[in-house]
């Protein structure tokens, strides 16, 4: 088999990214949408780390920042979810179509 090059990693990351996008676009459940966003962020991370093999360590630094952001995003997102669930008793995004209730 051919040796594994950076391109292989990039394709794997693209696949994950696309899966994440599909999840965000098609699912109704907020929890799963948040998880899909995590998937997207991870795909980006994989790209960054793969490129860091070509251009030096900066990619890895960036991926660490991305992980930090993911943590913040998950905390806030799930906080919103809890508050929302407490008021509406649903976790479906398409039922959140009002700006105020």
């Amino acid at each position, binding site marked *: 088999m051919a040796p594994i090059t950076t391109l292989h990693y990039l394709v794997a990351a693209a696949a994950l990214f696309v899966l994440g996008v599909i999840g965000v676009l098609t699912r109704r459940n907020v*929890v799963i949408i948040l998880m899909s966003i*995590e998937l997207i962020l991870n795909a980006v*991370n994989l790209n960054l780390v793969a490129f860091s093999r070509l251009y030096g*360590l900066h990619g*890895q630094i960036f991926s*660490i920042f991305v*992980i930090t952001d993911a943590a913040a995003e998950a905390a806030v997102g799930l906080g919103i979810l809890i508050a929302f669930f*407490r008021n509406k008793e649903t976790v479906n*995004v398409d039922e959140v179509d009002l700006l105020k209730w």
Partner: protein
Amino acid sequence: MQPVATTFFFYLLSGAAILGGVLVITRKNPVHSALALIMTLLAQAGLYLMLYAPFVAGVQIILYAGGIMVLFLFVIMLVNIEKVQKQEQFNKQWLVGIVAAAALGVLFVLVYMKGESLFPKHVVRLAEESNTQEIAVLLYGQYMFAFEIASLLLLVAIIGAVVMAKKRI
């Protein structure tokens, strides 16, 4: 240390990651989705190790798999999944969404095909033995300001999450 059986492990790990990704977006039960996401994250940690990024792999395991996913599971347990499971899982625009995402994927692959020639021909040898030390030097040197901003971001996120999730303030 030279990685062994790179090809085999690459296909194993990336296959696991993508399979996990597919399961995340198709499962009805959010707990199963979370489990699949954990599989993806751990497989990615393995890929990071193969890419000479042990520190990122460690952070991935501690923060993602150990921290964020526990948070997810916690929240899933708080919300009532039984009801959610019986409902329609996909929204009305699911076909459009899949088509758009597929188009995006095709775009990615095309760009990679075209752009591969632009990549540097040789791979930078990253020292695995001192990876952590080098990252530390960069993080606390060149990226100091970004690091501080990230810490501020986390603080804001903590406060925001507490404010939103609290019953009565």
